[in-house]
């Protein structure tokens, strides 16, 4: 009843090609963003900001990056954390070595460095496919972390190989409290998500999808495979790089290269697959799921009053079982569930 598109006529091309063609969607998204910017800062507790919302947003951004590569361009990558590390350490060094460097520019340059590394390590994708590619992206993961530990210049000769993020200051305004950092991250994520949404609807996005669905066919009908695959790697790594920089600057503060380990890569891959491959919304849902699930689980098993040595293991088992369960119920991810719900809503309450 409420969610219906009848009566919404598109009278111009502009109308026809807007991001959210259905009015309800548009308002819902706007309302949601407005809620996140205006209401959340007043209702959320510092715990929510610094332990849930900020990591959620940062991981969403990284998942978005990986989703561009895996979901849209069809290249599986297990090296996401490495690109995040490049972003973080590049941003740190730009801030450190260029006097008066604005932090936002440092984030962007961090992303650019990550995308250059991405292009380099994306080259094998021109010849290798599927799991062979996935396993070889592990080379990126191990090599980048090794490099960051080995070359002391990257960590400013810190004896322990740890970098301490400089303070975040934009136009004289300091982002210190979790609330302020949340708003900064939210703004960056919103802008980048919007860009991504637009990108995947454009020629670039369509060429990615063509390559994903069948690269030989795409090549035959005139897509330039090399350019398409490499742009996917570049854009994806850019997103991951920015996410990595935000991870260092707005979340943990002091990081060692090992923070960007294989575990993190896998977590982000989970987010993408659980959330839904090839869906911007899915990246957010997946990130929310993977960030929240262990926390909720730990609360639940905590209530049972079992000894901790038992609950920790049960938590892990339930986490694994739930992943399998979700995959069985909906192999296309949470985004697909949302789509199904929308289809149902469209007809509700009259099924015909």
């Amino acid at each position, binding site marked *: 009843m409420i969610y219906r598109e009848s009566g919404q006529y598109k009278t111009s091309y502009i109308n026809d090609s807007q991001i959210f063609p259905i009015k309800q969607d548009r308002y819902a998204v706007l309302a949601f963003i407005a809620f996140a910017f205006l209401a959340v800062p007043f209702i959320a507790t510092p715990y929510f900001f610094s332990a849930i919302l900020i990591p959620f947003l940062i991981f969403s951004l990284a998942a978005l990056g990986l989703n561009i590569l895996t979901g849209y361009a069809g290249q599986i990558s297990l090296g996401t954390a490495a690109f995040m590390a490049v972003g973080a350490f590049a941003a740190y060094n730009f801030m450190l070595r260029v006097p008066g460097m604005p932090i936002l520019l440092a984030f962007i340059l961090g992303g650019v460095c990550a995308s250059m590394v991405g292009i380099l390590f994306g080259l094998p994708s021109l010849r290798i496919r599927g799991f062979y590619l996935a*396993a070889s992206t592990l080379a990126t993961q*191990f090599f980048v972390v090794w490099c960051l530990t080995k070359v002391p210049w990257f960590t400013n000769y810190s004896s322990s190989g740890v970098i301490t993020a400089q303070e975040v200051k934009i136009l004289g305004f300091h982002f210190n409290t979790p609330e302020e950092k949340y708003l900064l991250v939210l703004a960056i994520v919103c802008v980048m998500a919007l860009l991504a949404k637009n990108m995947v609807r454009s020629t670039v996005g369509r060429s990615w999808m063509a390559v994903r669905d069948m690269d030989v066919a795409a090549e035959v009908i005139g897509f330039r495979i090399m350019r398409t695959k490499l742009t996917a790697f570049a854009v994806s790594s850019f997103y991951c790089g920015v996410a990595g920089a935000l991870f260092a600057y707005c979340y943990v503060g002091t990081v060692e290269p090992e923070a960007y380990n294989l575990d993190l890569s896998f977590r982000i891959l989970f987010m993408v*697959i659980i959330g839904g491959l090839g869906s911007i919304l899915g990246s957010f849902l997946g990130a929310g799921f993977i960030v929240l699930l262990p926390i909720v689980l730990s609360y639940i098993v905590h209530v049972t009053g079992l000894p901790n*040595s038992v609950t920790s293991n049960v938590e*892990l088992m339930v*986490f694994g079982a*739930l992943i399998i369960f979700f995959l069985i119920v909906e192999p296309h991810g949470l985004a697909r569930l949302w789509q199904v719900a929308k289809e149902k809503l469209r007809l509700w309450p009259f099924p015909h």
Partner: protein
Amino acid sequence: MQFFFEVLIAGLLSGVMYALVALGFVLIFKASGVFNFAQGAMVFFAALTTVGLKEEFGLSLWAAIPITMVVMVLLGIATERIVLRPLVNQHDITLFMATIGLTFFIEGFAQLVWGSTVRKLDLPIQDVPIEFVMERTGMLISQFDVIAAIICAILVAALAILFNKTKVGRALRAVADDHQAALSVGIPLQHVWAIVWAVAGFVALVAGLLWGARNGVQFALIFVALKALPVLILGGFTSVPGAIVGGLIIGASEKLAEVYIGPYVGGGIEGWFPYVLALVFLLIRPEGLFGEKIIRRI
């Protein structure tokens, strides 16, 4: 020169140990197209169960191993029933993801049952240098590694016979070639998968015992899977001999690289060198050394 050979042999023997883990991956991928990430967890679980039975229930090693074998077969069958069967015909990556879920489950389950203490596993094989080789050539070659290599060779031979000479093996190869065609000529797909997972469980047990005896039975056994991945991409996901040859190449070259190149770049390159090496190989042969040639049609 003697040192060079020592490094080379140590590398080859390490390679055999990697190949042992890689075999489990190959078996499952060959028969069901599933990239089974849980193989590392299975290795850990198998080793832990054996040691746990031995220490907690006072069983002898020779009693614990068959019981563990039964447990691994049950685990394989249960995996097929509960995880894979509902996911038939799904995208590869979904299946891959499901095995990651399985990994968490097994990790949690193993530690829930047996606790998180680090345990010692004593096989009746001494991990000491073979004396007559030491006397003749001055090289130190571990008896344990040599026996591990022999076990590995026996295992591969047995698998080759299973695949090539038995009825089950024919069914396995048929399923590997084409699920649907195999189904249509009356091969029970589910049974075949259950068998493959059980065999993979057995391979995991052998790998778990050997690695567990070498490193102690602890959570880090899961990481031996990471050592197996470059072997896999180098040798091809679908080839049993590929796993062995790949293992030998990776083992030997990573040791040589660590010893001869490592000192110039700060060392510790073993972590990524095998991957880069495998990557270079792949650029020349995208389906791995022994993988089936990929023919792509539109």
